């Protein structure tokens, strides 16, 4: 009797997990297919893309990549994108963690006000402040410079990172801090030697999100950058879009190249990243 009962539970479990896996597989295909399609299209001719959009390329036109690289100065754009991403993401995480720690852990008046004030930044779309921002940057002589991109990106990235880190810091047991205090740590020592190393999952998660956001940023460079020498990748690939035509094969080739660094970054931080998403779900 008991055995039979447990069998039926087993069966039901199997069916449930099977349907979950099916759902996940379908979902994964939906997510990944556009990338595969992009990569495949990047190896076709323009004519082939329109005639048979979903077929495999008849002939692998690797030359598309060389052409695309040359025509949009991809090397320069890649360097600029890396500089902008690194130059904004590292300060975002650094300043956010410095702000998040006192907000999460110390008692002082105005704490909630400061938190809300910083988070409000997340709610204002770039479009709303675009014109004043452009004027400001012009006055500061930052138009057409990478710094003119980096500074607004830092301001834009801090609110979300701050929310994540405040939440994470609050979950670290207070006793650990007490132990460090008695062990002789200063307030900054606790932050640097205990809190930050413990927050690696959250730091990696925010890091990878911000890399993605800044890497894909299009509107801000469109406003700030005119000169080819300081263009980032999203702007540079616009070279294949004219008023009346789009050179899809080169565009796809350039975009395929553009996602490689992101994929590399993701795999570098992936282990920590996944832990960050599930942290706190299980008691250690």
């Amino acid at each position, binding site marked *: 009797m008991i055995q039979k009962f447990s069998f039926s539970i087993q069966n039901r479990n199997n069916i449930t997990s099977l349907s979950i896996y099916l759902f996940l597989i379908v979902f994964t295909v939906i997510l990944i297919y556009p990338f595969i399609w992009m990569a495949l299209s990047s190896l076709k001719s323009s004519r082939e893309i329109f005639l048979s959009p979903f077929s495999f390329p008849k002939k692998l036109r690797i030359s598309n990549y060389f052409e695309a690289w040359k025509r949009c100065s991809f090397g320069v754009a890649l360097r600029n994108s890396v500089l902008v991403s690194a130059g904004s993401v590292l300060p975002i995480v650094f300043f956010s963690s410095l702000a998040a720690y006192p907000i999460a852990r110390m008692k002082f008046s105005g704490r909630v006000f400061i938190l809300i004030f910083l988070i409000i930044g997340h709610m204002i779309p770039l479009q709303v402040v675009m014109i004043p921002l452009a004027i400001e940057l012009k006055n500061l002589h930052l138009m057409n410079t990478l710094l003119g991109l980096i500074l607004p990106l830092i301001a834009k990235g801090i609110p979300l990172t701050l929310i994540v880190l405040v939440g994470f810091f609050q979950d670290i047991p207070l006793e650990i801090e*007490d132990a460090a*205090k*008695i062990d002789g740590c200063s307030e900054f020592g606790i932050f640097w030697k205990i809190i930050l190393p413990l927050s690696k999952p959250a730091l990696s998660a925010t890091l990878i999100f911000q890399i993605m956001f800044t890497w894909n940023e299009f509107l801000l460079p469109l406003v700030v950058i005119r000169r080819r020498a300081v263009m980032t990748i999203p702007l540079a690939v616009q070279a294949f879009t004219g008023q009346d035509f789009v050179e899809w094969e080169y565009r796809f080739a350039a975009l395929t190249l553009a996602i490689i660094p992101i994929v590399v970054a993701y795999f570098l931080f992936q282990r920590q990243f996944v832990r960050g998403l599930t942290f706190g779900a299980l008691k250690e």
Partner: protein
Amino acid sequence: MARVLIKDVSKRYGEVLAVKDMNLDVKDREFIVLVGPSGCGKSTTLRMIAGLEVITSGEIYIGDRLINDVPPKDRKVAMVFQEYALYPHMTAYDNIAFGLKVRHESRREIDKKVRRAAQMLELTELLDRKPALLSGGERQRVALCRAIVRNPDVFLFDEPLSNLDAKLRTQARNDLIKLHRRLGVTSIYVTHDQTEAMTMGDRVAVLSHGVIQQVGTPGELYDHPQNKHVAGFIGSPAMNFIECKLVKKDGKIWIDGKGFTVKVPDNYIPLIESFINKEIIFGIRPENVYIGRAPVSSNEENTIPAVVEMVEPLGTEVVVHLTSPDPGKHGFISLSGREALRLRRGERIKVIFDLSKMHAFEKDTEKAIM
């Protein structure tokens, strides 16, 4: 090595007074236990000594030094926490060494101290493991090791054994006592477990509602509790309390429990005389309530009828829950030998009180009369 002196210390959180005018003198090398139910202010007191809580009023001295405004790191105290509070990202070795590293001791010196302390607690094999890979008992030992390696003046323990299972707890208790004998460092130990308090403390302070009810050796607390709270808290199973009236009859003093009467031993009369015809609380420990064989001879002055309600075997001892058979109905407990196992629910029996071990408390103030 140092004495810890707590002088008129209070701690207030907003409206709540967590600790009220506390005075406690912990002698050098003493192992003192603060015991009480949760929320009685014992942990707050410990955290004030550690410097993790600001002292609202009063003074705390370690040695001759007033430490009210000294930061935790300069107080020369070490603390073991309930959840151990190990640094999860560091190995056991680094956890133990952390306090020394922060103090910029030389690498060689640190290594020597860590290894010596680890050996004392049999942790040498586990030094390169991170806390997640250690069992509860091992984590507890790492936490202890982290405390002793600093060679502090005072050890503070905040319920360090409460996360261990019962068997391990007994073992850890003995280890801690041995360690204290070996190191001889003044120790203040907080627990809610009266057994821990009684077995470990040179002296025990019983706290309730932020006030020390009584400080004394375990024996003093057990034999001469100063009030009903201490009497009820110390000892397991807890002391029986029965509301009674004191009456005088034939030149003798009787405790009238509405349904039973027992006689107060003659040598207690001077202490209790002034309460004649008043309500009191009669107290007697379960181990002084006998069923069957008793060290005192049974007579009408100490024997009362009772009905068996429940029998709880504990192994060598048996807890028998009883009530008096009359309308007054007092429930009380006897701690008996294995022969009590034959008792059945509802059975009418006679129980004998060893009244030379009786206690009595004032009804309104709950202070001990004798």
